[in-house]
């Protein structure tokens, strides 16, 4: 404990000394870490961050619904469902492969173009996030569904539960528990990717920072936005670690019984 603390302090001091002594430090400090600019830019960046939070909240709900549906379609068996399976597979292939920023452009500018109407950029950004992240998350959920032992399904059917009840009450809860760490990971990734909606003109934290940066000719507002995103991510990351550790403990305990 003591050694760990001491080693951390020494390491941090060494890193600090190195950075401070780089030739360009004075200029970089001025244009990225200027306290006055940070304070001045904070209100607008924070206001934009609330927009990010709102988009994130709606996206999480959207992804949960769409991803579960896609995962369900991919696990359907039987020749009748072949077209649905193909469609679901094509969807996950395409949207896992396409960079998010291109999906944002396609949906953000393409959909209003198709419909010849103005649609809120915030809504379009949310849709693009849901479409992209559902492709990843559905694969995680599908792997979870397939990881639930067949005897669980049989046990549920033997009790008289219908196919849908078996999925909802027995298979999905176990699949999602088992896949909690990767799901949380995707959530962390989405928390920061929410900042990309700024490319559509949504005045979020990143766009707010861009406006403030132009005003003060100083990059500090971006750092302010970055700090806000990191502060948002840390609790989720710690929670992910905790859940992962707990699942591991439970599994080890299970093997003893």
């Amino acid at each position: 404990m003591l050694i760990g603390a001491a080693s951390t302090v020494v390491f941090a001091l060494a890193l600090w000394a190195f950075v401070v002594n780089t030739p360009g430090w004075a200029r970089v400090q001025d244009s990225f870490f200027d306290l006055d600019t940070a304070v001045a830019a904070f209100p607008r960046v924070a206001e934009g961050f609330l927009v990010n939070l709102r988009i994130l909240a709606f996206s999480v709900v959207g992804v949960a619904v769409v991803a579960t549906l896609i995962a369900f379609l991919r696990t359907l068996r039987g020749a009748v469902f072949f077209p649905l399976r193909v469609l679901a597979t094509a969807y996950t292939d395409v949207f896992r492969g396409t960079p998010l920023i291109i999906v944002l452009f396609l949906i953000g500018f393409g959909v209003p173009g198709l419909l010849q109407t103005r649609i809120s950029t915030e809504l379009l950004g949310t849709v693009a996030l849901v479409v992209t992240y559902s492709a990843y998350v559905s694969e995680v959920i599908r792997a979870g569904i397939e990881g639930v032992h067949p005897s669980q399904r049989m046990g549920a059917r033997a009790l008289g539960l219908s196919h849908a009840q078996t999925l909802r009450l027995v298979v999905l809860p176990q699949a999602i528990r088992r896949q909690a760490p990767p799901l949380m990971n995707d959530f962390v990734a989405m928390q920061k990717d929410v900042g990309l909606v700024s490319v559509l003109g949504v005045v979020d934290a990143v766009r707010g920072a861009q406006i403030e940066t132009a005003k003060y000719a100083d990059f500090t507002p971006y750092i302010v936005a970055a700090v806000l995103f990191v502060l948002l991510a840390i609790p989720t990351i710690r929670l992910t670690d905790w859940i992962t550790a707990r699942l591991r403990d439970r599994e080890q305990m299970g093997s003893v019984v």
Partner: protein
Amino acid sequence: MSGTVLRLEGIRKSFGATSVLRGVDLDLAEHEVVALIGPSGSGKSTLLKTINLLEPIDDGRILLRDEDISDPRVDVDRTRARFGVVFQHLNLFPHLTVLDNVTLASRRVHGVPRAEAEARGLELLDRIGLGAKAREHPDRLSGGQQQRAAIVRAVATDPEVLLLDEITSALDPLLVGDVLELVRELAAEGTTILMATHEMAFARDVAHRVVFLDGGVIVEQGPPAQVFGAPREARTREFLARFSA
């Protein structure tokens, strides 16, 4: 013994080219306890799974109180809910508490209100000494406790027939006794039971009738004293000899 609860007529079942059941006829009377014995691969498990429609049959009829439940038009979910089943491997749902496991079918299939289902579930769990563990998850229970909870779950809905598929063969030998004791109690209370088992002493003691299945057909059946004491068929003698050895 009163009327017939379950009647199997000429049950046939194949998996691909392998014929597992080759025409099984079996009656089960109300309150009767029938032990199904036979070597591994004789079709015991498959037979039990065809009865509550977990495996579709290729040919034959299954009558539950004179109703043909093998008819493709019957509601399989409602029919399955009339049976109680316990499998060899631990089948409790790990994400639910023991009590939720026990009450799941009552609440979700039979529409019993939660409070009522839980009162009954707690009563049953108290009876097997697991009342204090009702709110725990199954991984806090020993294998024997889990299997007893699975039996309680199967009888919580007052099934017409209880199907037990080698429920002690995956257990530590030390834990088998308590599980069999619970089955013995249920049998004494008049539960209609069809059980596949390798516990010959238990079958002899508790069953009213023993059915020897081999190669997908019933080779011999009768009261335990006769099947175990004086088997008529050579194949039965051969099979039983391996157990006494």
